[in-house]
């Protein structure tokens, strides 16, 4: 069970110069041997000195606080520009892309800047959201759920989306038709069980979910649960072990006497 969470290590990567954002919370680039040695020295120091332990604890709490900061509710924006504007701004700020009805996709560029024109037409409902690789968590869904007429939602590779978040998606049941959860490390079959509220779902992508214990069986059960939906991503034969290879009959060789 530690495998999907192995990246949630602590302070060692912070000292490797600039942090590459909270996406790589622990993804150090140092070579393996060096990493291991660094980790044990740090662990040794942590075990012997309360101060080191307290410092590491504080730094961990600060990392978590940063994620919370990113997911705060934009209630003032909602009052000013309506729910669609606030929701769209939240997604764009996180680094995702937004598509209003009858308009083009709005994406932030690599510096995180995005065009501010959408404030003009934010009475138009948002149709599709691509929140891949964003840091949306349970509290951030407050902003996402403002988009009442959302039809397509992509939460691919979101590292903070877990089973609790999936249980919050039921208000979008009337409109949501497409949902993608590919590559989310914290989503398990227990979270997929609460997608049964989404009666209008037509396409569900559940490929590459490392926390699901039995992907083939889960796919079958999810297909039973959502009869009108096309469930994509897992081959039903995954997880089946192939039997012992049968030796091909070699008719040319002479039969031993």
């Amino acid at each position, binding site marked *: 069970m530690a495998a999907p969470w192995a990246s949630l290590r602590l302070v060692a990567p912070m000292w490797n110069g600039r942090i590459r954002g909270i996406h790589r919370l622990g993804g150090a680039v140092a070579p393996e041997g060096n990493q291991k040695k660094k980790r044990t020295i740090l662990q040794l120091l942590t075990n012997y000195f309360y101060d080191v332990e307290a410092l590491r604890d504080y730094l961990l709490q600060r990392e978590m606080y940063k994620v919370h900061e990113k997911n705060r509710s934009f209630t003032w924006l909602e009052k000013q520009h309506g729910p669609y504007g606030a929701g769209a701004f939240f997604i764009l700020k996180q680094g995702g892309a937004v598509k209003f009805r009858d308009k083009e996709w709005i994406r932030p560029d690599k510096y995180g800047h995005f065009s501010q024109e959408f404030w003009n037409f934010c009475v138009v409902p948002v149709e599709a959201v691509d929140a891949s690789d964003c840091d949306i968590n349970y509290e951030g869904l407050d902003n996402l759920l403002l988009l009442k007429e959302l039809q397509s939602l992509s939460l691919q590779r979101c590292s903070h989306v877990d*089973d609790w978040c999936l249980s*919050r998606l039921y208000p979008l049941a009337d409109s949501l038709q497409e949902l993608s959860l590919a590559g989310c490390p914290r989503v398990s079959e*227990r979270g997929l*069980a*609460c997608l049964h*509220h989404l009666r209008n779902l037509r396409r569900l992508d559940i490929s590459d979910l490392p926390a699901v214990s039995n992907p083939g069986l889960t796919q079958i059960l999810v297909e039973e649960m959502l009869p009108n939906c096309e469930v994509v991503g897992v081959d039903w034969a995954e997880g089946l072990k192939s039997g012992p290879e049968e030796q091909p009959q070699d008719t040319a060789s002479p039969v031993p006497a």
Partner: protein
Amino acid sequence: MIRRVLPHGLGRGLLTRKPGTRRGGFSLDWDGKVSEIKKKIKSILPGRSCDLLQDTSHLPPEHSDVVIVGGGVLGLSVAYWLKKLESRRGAIRVLVVERDHTYSQASTGLSVGGICQQFSLPENIQLSLFSASFLRNINEYLAVVDAPPLDLRFSPSGYLLLASEKDAAAMESNVKVQRQVGAKISLMSPDQLRNKFPWINTEGVALASYGMEDEGWFDPWCLLQGLRRKVQSLGVLFCQGEVTRFVSSSQRMLTTDDKAVVLKRIHKVHVKMDCSLEYQPVECAIVVNAAGAWSAQIAALAGIGEGPPGTLQGTKLPVEPRKRYVYVWHCPQGPGLETPLVADTSGAYFRREGLGSNYLGGRSPTEQEEPDPANLEVDHDFFQDKVWPHLALRIPAFETLKVQSAWASYYDYNTFDQNGVVGPHPLVANMYFATGFSGHGLQQAPGVGRAVAEMILKGRFQTIDLSPFLFTRFYLGEKIQENNII
């Protein structure tokens, strides 16, 4: 050269016993001697207790500010919040005394692990809501440096409570209270129920309430181990032993009506070690009774309930162990992945377990059918006669099922009104209770732990007001009845 010869010579000395050396000589147990010397040196170094004469490392400390009797989820939750809310680091010394470190009979490990907000009392709903947010953010609350994160295996599938005609009005008013406090519950008519869950037989059901968020079930053992790990890293001491005696002093005082009242204060707790007569008197300021099903024994040790019945002195702690059975069965055609924890009108409940069409459930027996709580033996006939008929009636697919296993566990049942006892005792001034939750202790543990810690440190409840749950209600006769007990 000499170095090579010496051990060689010694080795030969070990093997060959010269006739003169046995009498009065010592057999050179080199390794044993070295380890003993190492131990002695380590005990002299700073940071270790110096016990050169007697090894007392297995005994609890002689002084502790708070002694928590009972190391289950409630006791550990109180310890955690005491350490979280203390004014500066290391201000309070806490000792948790647990009789059985394997938790073989503890209600926590044997629990079904459900959490729901569908209660009738606002305090219960608030406690469950807080516990849900605690569990959701458990890796922030219980993060320990260098330890792997906790996987609670929480299934957010919700609770589905079914009500017959006569209970429908009560259910509606309950749901109104729940929504006011902030829980997300939806009410469903029999038609909507059939639409959503076609495997239910809605005969006799007038109304159903379905929890949409923050309800489900999780792994209680993981919560217990996570709390234990965090609490140990915060500096709480653990001791495996049994509390056998409280040494207390009493003071006779007069009330304003000139009635004599005896106020007691516990000074020492005698903790007896496992399988021996050795005990350690622990001097303490506050004792927290979180002993679960055995809380009444601890309360009796402190002298609670010794007096003429009908007086405050004579009011015993009305918590007793009640045995409950949980059965696991396999039903291949049973309800699918979306199944919530269904609680029937008859009191029978079940939920899914895992991906393989396994279910577990049970039913609370009526007062007349209560099994004997002397041991944890399972009565399989109870399933045949009292649980299966109701389940098969409600879910026709359960007419064919095969029981795989079963277990029994204790509820710390409050015979007065089935709700918890929280807070200090009016006469024994330094004993605090955190027990008697009658089957929903696990789901309310984080909230209750925080409330007791606030009571101890600040003197009053700050976040959730649990004053209706104080001990004095047993004397005053004020029942706070909870209607939705599963």
